């Protein structure tokens, strides 16, 4: 999964890993300040265009709900984890090779999201979070692979 690099540096830098980690950091920052705080409020508005933010579908951490729904929380967590792996791989001079079969992990996201939207079934918060997390991994890994494409 982590292959030897070619010895040449890709567009190595902290930009892409930082971009992948930023959403999770913002969610964590809002959770740290707690629901109802100014920080939570502002960050919640920031995520409003990309998440329905329905309270019943949000995970509660230390008594306060996260600013995004469980699926988004899992997705951004997956992005953050992938971003850390990308940075670690670059630091070790390796590249993270994504397997094409990993993209099948996007199917549960599409199916579950559509089914919940149409009211076919209601997935528990933990399930939504796991589905979101799994879908984020191949996307972030493909981004990492693209950074090495011209080597």
């Amino acid at each position, binding site marked *: 999964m982590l292959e030897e690099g070619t010895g040449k540096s890709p567009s190595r830098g902290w930009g892409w890993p930082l*971009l992948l980690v930023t959403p999770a950091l*913002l969610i964590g920052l809002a959770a740290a300040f707690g629901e109802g705080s100014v920080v939570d409020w502002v960050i919640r*508005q920031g995520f409003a265009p*990309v998440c329905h933010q329905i309270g019943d579908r949000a995970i509660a951490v230390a008594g306060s709900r996260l600013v995004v729904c469980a699926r988004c929380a899992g997705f951004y967590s997956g992005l953050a984890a992938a971003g850390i792996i990308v940075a670690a791989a670059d630091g070790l001079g390796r590249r993270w090779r994504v397997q*094409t079969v990993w993209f099948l992990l996007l199917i549960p996201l599409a199916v579950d*999201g559509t089914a919940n939207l149409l009211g076919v079934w209601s997935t528990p918060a933990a399930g939504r979070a796991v589905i979101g997390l799994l879908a984020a991994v191949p*996307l*972030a890994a493909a981004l990492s692979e693209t950074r090495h494409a011209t080597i």
Partner: protein
Amino acid sequence: MQRSEATLRAIFWAGLGGGVASALPLFNLANCFCCLWAWLTGATAVALARQREPVEEADVPKLGALAGAYAALVMVTVGLLGQLMGLGGGFDMSSVGEFLPESMPAERLDWVDSVSGSGPIQVVFTLVGGMIVAALYAAFGALFMPSNSRVYGIIGNKGGGKTVSERTPRVGS
């Protein structure tokens, strides 16, 4: 990434379209489908740029990210203008009360009500929120195109899942 006229035009038009669509009521519901407008903006920017010149595989996520960030800027601007003209859209500060816990102290609720109605404060918070949206749109704009290139290797080219760079011989190699 080379900032040629073609790439700048692609970023401009893709970002403009994605931002306006994201700001319009009802249209913005498409973002429920995994932030559709965000990654469509990135995909559109790459497609537009490729119509005029080759785009390196490594530049695809950069192009998508820039287009996504620009779309977020357009979205925030359009939303803000809509709010100022009383047409709605943008960050609805008055709705923030729906997300606040019932156990919140009364004086805090009063403060929230007073701040949410203040124009300058609303603009400041909108700008800060806009920066967050820009980061999210940039991430989504960058994420999907590399995956699309990979999946295209299976569906379109029967290349066994190889990336475009692996299928296309490099000039001079």
